[in-house]
C-alpha cells in the first residue's frame, strides 16, 4: 500500500536547481535510506515531503501524518522532556493532558529515557536529545517517519543508541525514510536504498544491490569501493 507518492518534483534555490525531477513512491512498512554526497538534494527531497520546503513544480500525494527528526534535534529548550512530547498532542490533536502524558511515558520507555521525563534538553547528551526528538515525533502517531541525518551531529560513541531506537522502530514496521551517512544502518535495516546525485535519483534498489557491488562509477566512488 502506497503511503507517499512523489511525481516530478523540482526545486531550485536561486540559480541552483537542487531537485531535477524526482519520482518516488514509498509503501507502508518500508524502510528506505537515501544516501549521496552533500549537495545531492537528499535533505531537500525529505523536506519537500512534509512541506518544510515548497516544491517549485510537481506533486506530492500523501494523506498520512508525517513525523520528522532533524539533524540538530530542534527540541524546545524551554520545555522539559515530557512537555516536549505532550505539547503537540495537546495543542494540535486536543488530547487530554493526562492521556497525553500516559502515552508519552510509554514512548519514553521505548527510547529508554523514562528517568529523564522532567529534565530539560540542555541537561541531556546529544544521543539522549535525539531519542527524545524521536519520541516527540512519535507522540503525534505518524504513519511515516522522516529522519534527516539523525546521527550527523552526534559524537561517534552516541550514534549507536540512536540507531538502536531507529532499528527498533523498523522492526515494528514503521514506515521510515532516512537520509543518512551510516552505511551499516542502510545495509542492515533498510528495505530499499536510494542513491541521489546532483538532484536526481540515480539508483533505487535493495541494499545488497546498491551498496555491495554497484555498477555506477559515481556510486562506487561515493562508497569508496575502488581503492
Amino acid at each position: 500500500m502506497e503511503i507517499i507518492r512523489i511525481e516530478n518534483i523540482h526545486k531550485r534555490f536561486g540559480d541552483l536547481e537542487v531537485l531535477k525531477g524526482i519520482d518516488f513512491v514509498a509503501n507502508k512498512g518500508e524502510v528506505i535510506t537515501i544516501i549521496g554526497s552533500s549537495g545531492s538534494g537528499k535533505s531537500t527531497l525529505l523536506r519537500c515531503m512534509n512541506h518544510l520546503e515548497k516544491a517549485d513544480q510537481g506533486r506530492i500525494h500523501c494523506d498520512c501524518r508525517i513525523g520528522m527528526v532533524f539533524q540538530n534535534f530542534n527540541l524546545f529548550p524551554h520545555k522539559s522532556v515530557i512537555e516536549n512530547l505532550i505539547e503537540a498532542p495537546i495543542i494540535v490533536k486536543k488530547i487530554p493532558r493526562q492521556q497525553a502524558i500516559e502515552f508519552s511515558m510509554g514512548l519514553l520507555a521505548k527510547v529508554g529515557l523514562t528517568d529523564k521525563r522532567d529534565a530539560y534538553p540542555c541537561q541531556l547528551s546529544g544521543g539522549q536529545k535525539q531519542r527524545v526528538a524521536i519520541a516527540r515525533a512519535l507522540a503525534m502517531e505518524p504513519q511515516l517517519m522522516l529522519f534527516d541525518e539523525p546521527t550527523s551531529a552526534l559524537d561517534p560513541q552516541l550514534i549507536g543508541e540512536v540507531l538502536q531506537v531507529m532499528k527498533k522502530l523498523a522492526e515494528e514496521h514503521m514506515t521510515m525514510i532516512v537520509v543518512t551517512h551510516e552505511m551499516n544502518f542502510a545495509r542492515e535495516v533498510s528495505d530499499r536504498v536510494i542513491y541521489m546525485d546532483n538532484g536526481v535519483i540515480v539508483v533505487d534498489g535493495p541494499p545488497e544491490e546498491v551498496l555491495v557491488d554497484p555498477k555506477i562509477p559515481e556510486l562506487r566512488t561515493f562508497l569508496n569501493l575502488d581503492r
Partner: protein
Amino acid sequence: MDVSYVTSIIGFILQGTGITMKVYVVTIVCSIPLGILFALGKLCPFRPLQYLLAAYTWVFRGTPLLLQLFFAYYGLPVFGIEFQPLMAAYVTFVLNYAAYFTEIFRAGIQSIEVGQYEASKALGMNYLQTMRRIILPQATKVILPPMGNEAINLVKDTALCAALSIPEILRNAKVTVARDFSIEAYFVAAVLYLLLTFVIIRVFRELEKRYGYYN
C-alpha cells in the same frame, strides 16, 4: 535638612507618585501587547505593513518624547483632536514605548533559530500556536535585559509629564520648591524615583531568575 519641613511636604509629593504610577502602569500594560503585535506585523511578509511600521518606529524613536507630548497636547487640537493633559500623556507614552518594544520584540523573535519553527511545523502546529507556545516564550527570555532598561527609563520619562502641568512627582516637587524657596522637595522627588526604579530592578532580576531554568 529640616525633618519637620520634609514631613510636611512629603504628602503632597506622594500624591504625585500616584499619578506617576498611573502613567507607568497604563504605558506598560498597553504598550507591551501593542509592541508584540507590531513586531509580528514587521515580521510578516506583507510589504506595505512593514513600511508603515518602519515609519512608525522611526517617527516615535526618532523624535524627542517631550516634543511628542507637546504635539499630542498642543498640536492635535489643530486637527480637531483634544485631549485632557493626562490622556495626552497616556496616548503619547503608549505609542512611544510601543515603538521601542516593537524593535525589542522583533529582535527577540528573530533570535530564535529557524529549527524551532520547523520542528513546530513538522508537529502540525499552526502559526499562532507556534508563536504563542514556542517562539514568544523563548523570545521573552532573550528580551528581558533590554526590557528592564526600558522599564527603568519609563520611570524617569514620566517626569516629562510635568511639562503638561500634570501633578506627578516632579511637578509637585517643583511647585513646592517655587512656593517655599527651598530645594528639599527635589531630594524627596529623587528618593521617590530611586525607590520606584529599585522595585523595577528587583522585579526584572526576579524575572530573569525565573527564566534562567534553561539555556
